[in-house]
Structures are given as structure tokens and as C-alpha cells.
């Protein structure tokens, strides 16, 4: 029963703040609501027994990415400025499509996922187990993906620096019109 209460609490937080995130007119508030959603998601992971994932979600998502977001927002927006939402028939069409999507997918879920499925209790995943899975080369082990990810991260660091840095203005080159 405790489990049910915690779940519905988290579910309520996720649902409410998801909607608030995308409807809020102030961008800092949106970011904050997103933080709540991410934290509540981390709670769900803990409920399911994935403690490692829980930690990653908190540290990377709620920690790293959110800091990036907020930094970027402060760099690019004046405080308190409202960001616009599309108006008119476009807004209407988007609302309609999203609601239709929810209804269609909800219908599929309700008709296909039968009743309550209780998950099988399993002992806690140890760090050792996760480590061997991540760095092994056997079946259902992820060394290759792990390495790919490291390359991706490197590329993204280089790319981000390259894009965001200030281009130097070339000096001492006479303009053609001046010649």
C-alpha cells in the first residue's frame, strides 16, 4: 500500500509538472518544473530498484544538464521576459494532435497491457554486476556501446567548443573598397 501511495504521488508530480513545463510562459519556471519532473522520474527508478540509474538520473540530468540549461537561459534571456507561444489555428491544431495522440496511445495501452503485472522480486543490482556488464564483450554486454559513447562525448565537447567560441575578427587586412 505504501508503494501505491508513493507511486501515485510521483505520478501526480510528473503529470502536473510536465504540463506546466510546456505551458509556462516564463522560461526559468519551465526549467524549474522540468527539474521537478526529472527528480520525480528518479524517484520512479528508485521504486523499481534501479539504484544506479537513480543516481545517474539525479547527478547527470537533474545536476549537470539542468545547470547547463539554467546557465544558457541566463546567458540568452533577460530575466522575467516572457517567451511567446504560437497562437490561433496552429496552437489549436497542436493541442488537438497531442490530445489525439494521448487518446490513441492510451487506447492501445488499455486494450493491450492486460491487468496488473507484478514484477518479480530480484536481489539488488550490485555495482560489480553493472560494471562487468558495461565493460564486458560477451553476449548482452556493452563495451562497444560504452566506447562509442566515449567517442561521442569527445566529439560533442570539441563540437560545442568550436561552435560556441567567438570567431576572431581578422585585422590588418585592407578592405577591397579601400584599395
Amino acid at each position, binding site marked *: 500500500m505504501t508503494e501505491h501511495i508513493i507511486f501515485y504521488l510521483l505520478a501526480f508530480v510528473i503529470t502536473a509538472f510536465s504540463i506546466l513545463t510546456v505551458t509556462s510562459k516564463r522560461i526559468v519556471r519551465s526549467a524549474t518544473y522540468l527539474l521537478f519532473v526529472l527528480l520525480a522520474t528518479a524517484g520512479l527508478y528508485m521504486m523499481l530498484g534501479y539504484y544506479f540509474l537513480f543516481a545517474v538520473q539525479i547527478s547527470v540530468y537533474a545536476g549537470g544538464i539542468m545547470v547547463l540549461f539554467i546557465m544558457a537561459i541566463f546567458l540568452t534571456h533577460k530575466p522575467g521576459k516572457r517567451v511567446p507561444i504560437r497562437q490561433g489555428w496552429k496552437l489549436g*491544431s*497542436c493541442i488537438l*494532435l497531442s490530445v*489525439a*495522440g494521448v487518446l*490513441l496511445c492510451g*487506447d*492501445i495501452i488499455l486494450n493491450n497491457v492486460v491487468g496488473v503485472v507484478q514484477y518479480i522480486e530480484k536481489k539488488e543490482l550490485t555495482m560489480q554486476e553493472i560494471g562487468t556488464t558495461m565493460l564486458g564483450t560477451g553476449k548482452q554486454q556493452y563495451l562497444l556501446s560504452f566506447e562509442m559513447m566515449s567517442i561521442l562525448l569527445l566529439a560533442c565537447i570539441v563540437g560545442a567548443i568550436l561552435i560556441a567560441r567567438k570567431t576572431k575578427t581578422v585585422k590588418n587586412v585592407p578592405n577591397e573598397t579601400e584599395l
Partner: protein
Amino acid sequence: MEYTLFILLLPLTSFILLGLFGIKLSHKISGLIGTGSLLIMAQLSYVAAFSYFTTQRIDAVFQTVIPINVLWLKMGTNLHIDMGILLDPISVMMLVVISTVSLMVHIYSLGYMKGEKGFQRYYAFLSLFTFSMMGLVLSTNIFQMYIFWELVGVSSYLLIGFYYTKPSAVAAAKKAFIVTRFADMFFLIGILVLSYFTQTFDFGTLTSGDSSIFQQAISAQFLGTSALVWAMALIFIGGTGKSAMFPLHIWLPDAMEGPTPVSALIHAATMVVAGVYLVARLFPVYVLFTPEVLQGVAYVGAFTSMFAALIAMVQTDIKRVLAFSTISQIGFMMVALGVSKLEGHHGLGYMASMFHLYTHAMFKALLFLGAGSVIHAVHSNEMENMGGLRKHMPVTHLTFLIACLAIAGIPPFSGFFSKDEILSATYHFSTGMGIWMTVVAALTAFYMFRLYFSIFWGKEKQHAHTPHESPKSMTFPLVFLAIPTILGGLIPFGQFVTANRAPYAIHMNWMVAGVSVVVAVVAIFIASRLYQYPNKRTATVPTALRGFHKAASHRFYMDEVYLFITKKILFNGVSRVFAWFDRHVVDGFINGIASVTDWFSVRIRGFQSGEIQWYAWVFLFGTLLITALILFV
């Protein structure tokens, strides 16, 4: 005799070298490459000819030698195209002719084309021509011959249009190409018909005299005659195109727009006799199975030679006179082939034709090169700008005179012997034909000496600068070619080239020879009275024969007839219908597609707005729609 392959490879290498890298080489070096390769090739040809004529004779009959033959294309079970080299008396003779004239022209061009823009290109094309002409005569089968036949046409086209900035040269090149292509179409159809029925392209099989392979072709009937007759007639039409027989002769006079050495090589000595060579090559088929076509060859040749001789009498451009003279002389060769039979004394015509081909190549190349030397000196093609040049250009004058005497048939020059054999052969065929050809021979003597006297005698004209003798590189070929022109007639040709390949002792027919010499001398006398010294008679003759003179000057309006047929009938009548169809139906259909597409795209281009959110919206909408359709429908 595998080394004969190098006869083909040397000019080809020279062509590739000069064609690809010529622009980087100096004039001197490229001239040396072209001429040097030709020199080696000529040596090889002479060696090949010598060893062939001395060794390949079994029981007094020359054998066919095929040193190289490789399978090139296989079509069906029996039919295949080979690439190879075939040596027999006529191909070996052609080797000597082509390599000699080509070498002389290469040397001559060193002086004639000196400093011209495109010198390297010129030598590259000359090499290409020599390669393809050699390939043509050495072909082992009719299809290989056709390939080289077309290559020869292309190089002729390139060389006629060498001065491509001159509109008349471009027009002449196009005319030559289109007319000969038109004839080649018939040639190709003929080849296809022949090979379809006989299942072979090979000359050896075709000319073996074996009638079994022609059974099908003879029994197949089309429009009242057998397929074999059709095929051989069509092949002959291909030959008339290249050899400028009436009515496909119209390209040759215009081809004189090319550089004069080219005219000497291609349009006098070698390429234009390809038609004669073709008929000679297939002669056993003609004479054994389709004598009616062979008779047609004789009549076409006889008519053309008279026709061209009449035109040559009134032309004023010296190269045009020589061009029509060439047509006339090729007519002689055709007649000789047409009246010939296979065996013994009846095969005189074949031998005479090949003999005349050989001597004609020498003296006509000499005439053209001499004319080139004159043109080089006075910078004009027109007779009226010349006159009295004998004092200024002694070597040219002397060699030109020798060639004129040879073509007129004065003993002991080479032309006398070969022409005399032809006349004997025609008298043997029928007296009418003999008289006709004797008249043509007289006309030949007349117009050649009209040309000679107009250039070297007559009233001396005022020139911008005094004409002078050409450089050594140009006079050497003249002197060299004068030698076979004088002595060529003494070769016992009957020992080497005959219809059945057995030796044949030439007997002079003194009756015929006497008549022809007398007629020629009379014609030369008349010409000298009219043109040697300035006099009043020169102007009276054209007025006396006003109608004939006008018609002949206009080449009997053949070009106008062609223009009428193409412009009035084809362009206005037939083409107009096609043009209408093309413009309204074909174009209309395409335009319709285009305008519908345009109309549609104008209406839908708003979809591609560039807004990523709109694209995502459409994507999601589509996904949901498809999901819903799968689930609920």
C-alpha cells in the same frame, strides 16, 4: 610475316603520340615523329612486298597469306568478326602505293605546312588516315574493312575541315562526310544481307569461288532479283560513295578545300580508290555469281569518266580540274573491272584496273603536289592568276609536265601502258565502249594540257612578288614521284596482279595503242594552239560552245539537283510533316507534362516552408493516422 603488324601500329602510335602530346611538342619534332614513323613503315611495306612477291608463289599462283587473325566478336554460332592482316597481290600492291604516296606527302607537308597553326594536329590526322587506310587494305574480312572504311571517312572529314575557321572548308567537310556516310549506309546493308545468307564475313571464304555458300542468297528473291544481287549492288553503292562515282561524286570537288597535300594523298591517290579496291577484293563473287552487277559497274564507270572529263575541261580552279580528272580516272578503273572476266586473256581488265590504280596514284599525287607547289608560289587556285611560271619554277614545271604526259597516255610514260590495257579490255568487251573510253582519253589529254599550258605558259601575270621555286622538302617528293611516273609502265604488272593470280603476259595491242596515242597527240596539239601562247582563239571557244560551256561550268547542275531534292522535296515536303508532328505532338506532350508539374508545384510548394515544427507536426499526424488506420479499419 608477322612484322606487317607494325605497318599498322606505327602510324597508330604516331597518331596517339601527336594527338595527345602534340600541343606540347614543337613543329619540328612533331613533323619528325610523323615522317619518321612513316619512313619506317614504308621500309616495312617494301620489304613485305618484296618478300611476298618473291616467295609466296606456288605453281605460279600467288597464295593468300594471313599472318595474324584474332577472333574479335562472336555473333551466333557461325558468324564471327575477326581482326587480322591479309596479304595477297592487291593488298601488297596497295601497301606499296599507300606507303609511298603517304611518305612523300609527309615530307612535302614539312615544307608546305611550315608555320601553319595546328601543324601537330595536321600530322596526327595524317597518321590516323595512314593507319586506317592500311587497315582497310589489309582487312581479312568485310566487316573489319567496313570499320576501317569509316575510320578513313572520319580522317578525310577531319583533314578537309582542317582550316575549320573557313566556312567553305567546314561546309565541304560536312558535305564529304554526309555523302560518303549516305553511301556507307548501303554498304552496311549490303554487308548485313550478304553475311546473313552466307554466314561469313571472311574474304577467303567469300572469294573461294565455292558456290555452295551462296545457294541461299541466290534462291532468296526480293523484288524480282536474288538477294545476292541486291547485296553485291549495295556493296558497290558503298564503293561509289568513297570513289566518287556518279551520282555520288559531288563531294570530291568540294573536298579540295583541304590542304593540297591532303588532296594528293586522300582525294587522289588512296582513299578514293577504296571503292575500286572493294570491287577488286570481291571480284570473284561479282564475276562468278552476279555478272549483271559487274556490268552495271562498267556502265557507271564509263558514264562517270565521260561526265567528269567534260566538266574538267572548263573548270578554272586548278585543284578542281585535278579533282574531276581524278573522278574520270577512277571511272576508267571501274570500267576496266566491269568489263573483266576471271580467266586468262579475259581477265585483262582486272589487271589493267589495278595497274592503272597504281600508276594513277603516282602521277596524280605528283600532279597534286605540283599544283600545291604552284599554289604555294602564287597564293591562288585560279588559273587566271597564273601563267608563264615555267621560268620561275623549273623543277615543278618539269615534273608537272611528266605527270601530264603520263596521264595523257604518251609513251613511254606509265599512264600509257595502264590506260592502253584498259582500252584494250574495253574494246574486247564491245566496240562502242572502246570508242567511248578512247574519247574520254582524248578529253583527258586535252584538259590536262589546257591546265599545263595555262599554268606554265601563256601570258605572264603580274604578281605581288616574283614566284620562286619551292623549298627542297617540297621538290624532293616531286622528283621522287616522277621516277615511278616515268618508269612505272615498264613493270611487268601481269606477272604480279591478275584476276586469277596466275601470271599473265601482257601483249601490246598496237592497233589500240596507236589510235589512243594519235588521239592524245591531236588533243595536246589543240590544247597548245589554244592555250600555249596568248591568242584570240582562247576566248572564242567558250562563246562558240556557249550552252555546253555554261552547263559544264556549273558541273551540269548536279549540286543544284541535290539541293532541289534535299531542300525542296525533303525539307519542304517530308520534313515539314515531321516538324509539325514534333512541334505539336511530341513537344506538346512534353510541354503538357511540364506545365502540369508547374501548376501542381506552385500549389503545393507552401508545404515546404522550412519550419521544422510544421514538418514534425505532419510527421506525427501521419504516424498517428497510419496507426489508427491499422487499428480500426
